[in-house]
């Protein structure tokens, strides 16, 4: 690995100052499970690595049913699923953070880091999109908020400008009758990057029979994780049935523009979108009823 300097600021302002000063050569370290590999393999370079785990705001994890979830950018996957209340309220997010790497990875990897790494195949981003999560960004010019849906701009690229830092993610409170799920397809049962992934959030009517609102987001089938708008909108008012789930899966395929690579062909990935959307819809509806 090429030599770099290390800083572990304890104040957000200091972090932003250091980030700004270092310019192009600064890299943020949260869980490190992506950035350390990238630095080692020469995929990214750094003059300065800024460890943000000592900044209180970034490690804050607060859940209150009425206000929703405040998820500091460097909170580990492990802390999310270890909290039974959070896992129960946001099961789609819990699904994702339980399968990011093995346990050793989950002890360190953060959802914020997963977002900032902006991989098309990121597991945690599709659930965030389905919850309409907001990304809270701080930078030299102040703070602003971006919907997670708009955060990623390409493979490994996102809206963060030089000197800016993701501080937290906020997820809205979950109304009763809502449910969510995330599934990815991988050839093994663990320790793989998604060939394709689908997250679903649904709101059912009081009888649990009809879908009032739904949001579907996909991973690994486009340059960024994508929101499947047409499929999501079409589901409003539809009965929660296998036929409907399958149709939604067909509609979701329309936003898939995958590539062929060693993890799968474009055709296979597109096909998997249909299968995974159908399956996650079934799981999310089941969860919405309980």
């Amino acid at each position, binding site marked *: *690995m*090429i*030599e*770099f*300097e*290390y800083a*572990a600021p304890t104040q957000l302002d200091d972090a932003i100052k250091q980030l700004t000063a270092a310019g192009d050569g600064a890299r943020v*370290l949260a869980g*490190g*499970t992506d950035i*350390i*590999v990238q*630095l*080692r*393999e020469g995929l990214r370079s750094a003059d300065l*690595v800024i*460890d943000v*785990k000592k900044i209180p705001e970034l490690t804050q994890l607060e859940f209150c049913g009425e206000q929703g979830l405040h998820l500091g950018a460097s909170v*580990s996957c*492990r802390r999310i699923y270890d909290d039974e209340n959070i896992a129960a309220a946001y099961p789609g997010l819990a699904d994702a953070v339980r399968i990011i*790497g*093995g*346990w*050793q*990875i989950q*002890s*360190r990897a953060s959802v914020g880091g997963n977002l900032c790494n902006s991989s098309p195949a990121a597991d945690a981003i599709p659930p965030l999109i389905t919850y309409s999560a907001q990304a809270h960004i701080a930078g030299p010019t102040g703070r602003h908020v971006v919907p997670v849906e708009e955060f990623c701009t390409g493979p490994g690229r996102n809206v963060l400008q030089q000197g800016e830092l993701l501080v937290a993610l906020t997820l809205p409170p979950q109304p009763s009758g809502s449910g969510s799920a995330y599934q990815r397809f991988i050839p093994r*049962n*663990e*320790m793989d990057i998604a060939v394709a992934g689908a997250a679903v959030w649904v709101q059912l009517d009081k009888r649990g029979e009809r879908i009032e609102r739904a949001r579907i987001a996909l991973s690994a089938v486009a340059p960024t994780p994508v929101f499947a708008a047409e499929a999501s909108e079409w589901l409003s008012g539809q009965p929660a049935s296998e036929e409907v789930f399958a149709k939604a899966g067909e509609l979701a395929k329309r936003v898939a523009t995958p590539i062929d690579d060693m993890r799968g062909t474009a055709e296979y990935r597109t096909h998997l979108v249909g299968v995974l959307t159908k399956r996650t819809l079934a799981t999310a509806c089941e969860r919405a009823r309980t």
Partner: protein
Amino acid sequence: MKTHVTTTINGGSVEFLCQPRQSLLEVLRDELSLTGCKEGCNNGNCGACTVMLDGLPVNSCLVLAVEAEGAVIETVEGIAEQGHLHPLQQCFLEGAALQCGICTPGFLVAAKALLEKNPQPSEQEIRFGLAGNLCRCTGYDKIVRAVQAAAQTPEAQSPGLSKRPGLLSRTTQTEAKSL
């Protein structure tokens, strides 16, 4: 430029100097001679370098050593105490849960963390919990069984997984025993 880092490793205070680019794995092995954790892939995919960092299992190849400032670290060298093997170590030996042994330290650290979180895991919970550790020799069968056996020991079921005397000289006569 080297950074000074103060940590607690296997219960003792340890200070070291390192470059920011050095991983915790590198420092444990090369600077501190704690060579029990192994490098198999150096990118978080094999689990051979698993250590406990502040109570959680991590791939030490994916931790910068400078991040360990103020941290509590446990390695495989800290699992046995004063000549007494931990039940997991004993069960790995008795159950022949190792062949070449390179993945064994990582498995032991991860399995210990697993049992501390879930003292009576099902077979599937063990398999899920240890999916971050690769073994190419055993086919995992005997590893899973050794963890199951360790969970059945009285020591494992008491808080803190206290130690029991090592039984290294014992020959296990388990003809056709289902192990």
